């Protein structure tokens, strides 16, 4: 009668080889798919400053949305003529905020989040203040830059 040991060993080796091969095949299929689904970083020009408009375009006591790269920003002009700017993306769930003259604050329509005119979250669900921008007035041009 033949000794069963060599056949058992061969079976184990084959199982290991087959298992390793199947795992490698699975990984070779899954990895490219996962990597493919991950969107590439867009290597566009990094925006650090934008020209928003002329001083006279913004009435005192108003709020205006502007583009800062591919994100919205909000520029406030106060009755004394000074400016402030913030990112216009609500820190709660990413909606775009707006200036509400009747409330005298920045408001998010999605979940009724409220920020004061310094961008600080004062009511509702927003967990953090809006990120501020620096406003620079050069002659009659209003520039907004990243702080």
């Amino acid at each position, binding site marked *: 009668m033949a000794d069963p040991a060599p056949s058992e060993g061969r079976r184990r080796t084959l199982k290991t080889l087959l298992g390793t091969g199947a795992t490698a095949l699975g990984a070779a299929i899954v990895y490219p798919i996962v990597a493919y*689904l*991950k*969107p590439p970083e*867009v290597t566009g020009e990094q925006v650090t400053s934008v020209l928003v408009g002329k001083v006279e375009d913004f009435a005192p006591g108003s709020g205006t*949305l*502007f*583009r800062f790269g*591919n*994100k*919205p920003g909000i520029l406030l002009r106060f009755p004394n003529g000074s400016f402030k700017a913030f990112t*216009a993306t*609500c820190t*709660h*769930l*990413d*909606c*775009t*905020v*707006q200036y509400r003259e009747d409330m005298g604050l920045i408001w*998010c*329509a*999605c*979940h*009724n989040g409220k920020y004061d005119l310094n961008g600080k*979250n004062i009511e*509702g*669900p*927003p*967990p953090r203040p809006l990120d501020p921008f620096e406003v620079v007035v050069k002659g009659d041009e209003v520039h907004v830059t990243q702080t």
Partner: protein
Amino acid sequence: MKSIRTALSGWVEERVDLSGVKEFIQHKSVPKNRHSVWYYFGGVTLFLFIVQVISGILLLFYYRPGADTAFESIRFLMTKVQFGWLMRSVHSWSANLMVLAAAVHMFSVYLTKAYRKPREVTWVSGMLLFFLSLAFGFSGYLLPWNELAFFATKVGTDIAGSVPLVGEPIMQLLRGGPDVGGATLSRFFGFHVALFPAIFTVLLTIHLLLVQKQGMSSPIGAAEHGEEKSMPFFPNFVLRDLLLWLIVLNILAILAVFFPWELGVKADPFAPAPAGILPEWYFLFMFQILKLLPAHIWFIEGEVFGILFFGVAGLLWVLVPFWDRASQRGQNNRLITYLGIFVIVFILFFTILGWVM
């Protein structure tokens, strides 16, 4: 006519043995009891799904995905194409009715504890189909690329992004980038018309095969109440089913014709979220709760708390066949009934609150 039919069935039977199927249909019966009315809601959901497939394919003939073309193609469909407005209205209304029918089906199965052994897998597959229906609704909502859909998608994907650890990669996967834009629309289109239908078909096949194999569940204690009656599946139950489908088709037609679905304003990523923005009604209770939660609860952000709460509650709901031991033993578990009623009242309360506030 009859001879053609006999000849045709003879031709088929010479090649394929259908005696097993015939036997099955002839002997299949449906239990008759005071809860029998709920048996029809699964069928109604199936009917509305069929309407979705047909109307969805028809919409594809004109729809053009893309941030610059999607809104315009739907406007063209609704204003220039003959009955284009009707096709879109049917698709939108049918989607809403399907979610409603699926919800009624789910709660009736839950309250009659029809998920108990041996139907655990039927329940779980049904729950997955229900979640997939919501995902269909969410992904389809963005496709017209209007203002409401744009912000709903921003909020929805941001919610996914708030899940600890895995949230950020999931959000990127859904959006196709850091923000909601044309890439998101392409992905949602792919989910809506290819990926979700493929998964749905597989799950639906499993679900229906199990329902056919195991038959309808009799409520606990039906035998003791002397309710152990039954009716033949064919033709008695099937004809009742078809009659109800006809009624649902009429309701759908009335809604689609007299309350046509609006297109709204085209999405503008640089416009503020419009006042009075609301999600679809079936997400309204979650929306309202997220609105009411404070910025921080203990040491975690309010939104993360809300999402974890819904996640855990949803998981417990899906796994109910595995922890409701009393129903498994055939005992009437009142706790489960009260919990179900509480969930329904909770959802209704916050949905109504979302509407009126």
